[in-house]
């Protein structure tokens, strides 16, 4: 079985801040990481390889620095890691990113037919959860989002059964291969890279594929191929400052009573009698 894992190198969002004066993102010194959800997608692909055999190919689109993220994936045990990089890809929104990734998966399929594509449920920088389904749609693959468990794969019947983690519960669903899965973090725990894999990763130079190599319609890529654009960015709204109720340490019961009074007076709690 051949799985392709789509990953994204993202800034560690806990570190990103906005300069309120210039209105630009402060990204200097912010470390880049493999999107955490994608690491769980990779782990799921590796676990499936352990169970059913086959290979795992990792793909990312990004600048040459993204090779570092791909090496990280090799250190976990991926067989191959490919970088899609070209000026023509720059400025892509989710629609055009899914187009470029689809071209790449098709190219990969020419060598080794792809049974499964996996990705994290979303990336922590954009949080859109749109690229995975976009790729599934373009490839004509079955789409399984929010996968928390792969129950089993029947390679003869070309079927897969998974559990999806939804608001209503866990949906158990069976469908045909090839399929695209987006994976939630509850799906698995990440393995440690073994020494041979870590050694291989140090020397690994991911092949770089450009637009000419993967082909496709240039008008569907990059800025030109992106219907959405960012009009402006601004800092999130802040709440008006509140008040500290004194005495929390010295007399918690009195502080609690004062808080209840204030909440009641505000009509936030206490039923009809208290509401204005």
């Amino acid at each position, binding site marked *: 079985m051949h799985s392709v894992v789509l990953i994204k190198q993202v800034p560690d969002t806990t570190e990103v801040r906005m300069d309120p004066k210039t209105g630009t993102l402060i990204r200097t010194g912010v470390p880049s990481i493999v999107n955490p959800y994608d690491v769980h997608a990779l782990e799921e692909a590796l676990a499936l390889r352990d169970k059913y055999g086959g290979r795992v190919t990792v793909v990312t689109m990004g600048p040459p620095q993204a090779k570092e993220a791909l090496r990280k994936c090799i250190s976990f045990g991926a067989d191959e890691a490919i970088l899609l990089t070209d000026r023509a890809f720059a400025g892509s929104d*989710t629609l055009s990113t899914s187009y470029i990734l689809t071209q790449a998966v098709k190219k990969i399929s020419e060598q080794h037919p792809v049974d499964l594509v996996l990705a994290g449920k979303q990336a922590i920088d954009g949080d859109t959860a749109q690229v995975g389904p976009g790729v599934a749609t373009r490839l004509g693959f079955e789409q399984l989002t929010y996968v928390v468990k792969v129950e089993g794969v029947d390679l003869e019947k070309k079927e897969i059964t998974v559990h*999806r983690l939804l608001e209503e519960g866990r949906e158990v669903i069976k469908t045909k291969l090839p399929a695209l899965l987006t994976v939630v973090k509850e799906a698995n725990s990440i393995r440690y890279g073994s020494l041979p894999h870590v050694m291989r990763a140090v020397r690994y130079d991911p092949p770089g594929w450009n637009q000419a190599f993967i082909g496709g319609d240039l008008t569907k890529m990059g800025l030109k191929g992106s219907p959405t654009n960012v009009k402006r960015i601004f800092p999130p709204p802040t709440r008006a400052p509140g*008040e500290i109720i004194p005495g929390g340490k010295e007399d918690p019961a009195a502080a609690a009573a004062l808080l209840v009074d204030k909440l009641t007076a505000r009509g936030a709690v206490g039923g009809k009698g208290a*509401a204005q």
Partner: protein
Amino acid sequence: MSKQDLTNLPSAGDAPPAAWQAYSKGLTEAGPAGSEPARTEPKDVWVFVEQHGGKVANVSWELMGKARELADQLECKIGAIVLGHKVDSVVAMASANGADLVYLIDDPVVAAYRSKPYAHAIVNLANKFKPEVILVGATSLGRDLASIVATELDTGLTADCTGLDIDPETKNLRQTRPAFGGNIMATIVCPNRRPQMSTVRPGVMAKPKKLEAHDTRVIREPLGLTEERVAAKVIELLKEQDESVNLADAEIIVSGGRGTGGADGFKPLYELAEVLGGMVGCSRACVDAGWMPVSRQVGQTGTTVRPKIYFACGISGAIQHLAGMQSSDVIVAINRDPNAPIFKVADYGIVGDLFQVVPALTKIFRERLGRNGAGAGISAAEIKKDFLGEVPPGVPAKSADAKTSGEEARPQ
């Protein structure tokens, strides 16, 4: 939702309940297919009505409230997309919530959600009737669905919006959403392609205020897809304990962080939640530590909540957590560290030990509200509303206790 719950809802062929009809002055049928002329110019604002066995997700009605504002600015109509089987009650509710047009596809194949048949249905409707805007709730279902539809329609989709308005000059939809873990907000437009599509975060928009009598046209369309052509088969829905907690709809949330010190430390929080008829949430740290299930996690990577009161107990207030709760009506912070960032967003702060303050709160609320709580401002009508979506007065809703405090309050 259990089978029993469905018995309250009218099935196919039944007229909508009288109370609903009073609101939807005229539900006129325009179908079947072909009788409605296809439109060539993009025009209306559409809302996808997410229903599970006849129960409508609250976010769908929240979108109807916003759709009315947008439609007024664009001088167009609101179209509700209703997909399902025997969902006349949903059509009636859509009308009562302000839909001018209801596009209905009633077919067993779309009785329950599956990605491809639902996307197929909406793509066909959009290609035929050319909406200007399609709004979808940013639930797991909505995000799964909207991505396919936007890809098929080759148009832009903005995820998880928290603000929508119309640019007065260009008439484009301005879609505002948090990015980079809530550290920045971005306004996104899709100027050159139609429809403009957004998924919208639940709990952010207000539901329509008044249900006014107005005419609704129901346009029935065929699905054009048979079960044999659908590969995906849902085997079952497992309701594992505590995994299907729906924090997004809670009116009061008592949330704990690292300061609880462990799963046992949540006991006083459950007690306070019980008295107030609220639910218990937590920060990401507690999930990562294995103290609480992810279904209880509030924040950027968990659930976004907007309760009437949010109690943050022993939560320091990382930006990812704040992103998921800072639009709560009232925020109360209890933390031993006076410098904790949570105090910056709190309306009321108590610097102290949660194990002293929270039980004291529970005791006082219990005295003032009566033994079983129920004084938290949550009336039976509101519980019904939570359960059935927007229910106009006079509609019986028997089994409406799914979210009352009794079931929620479960000290381990």
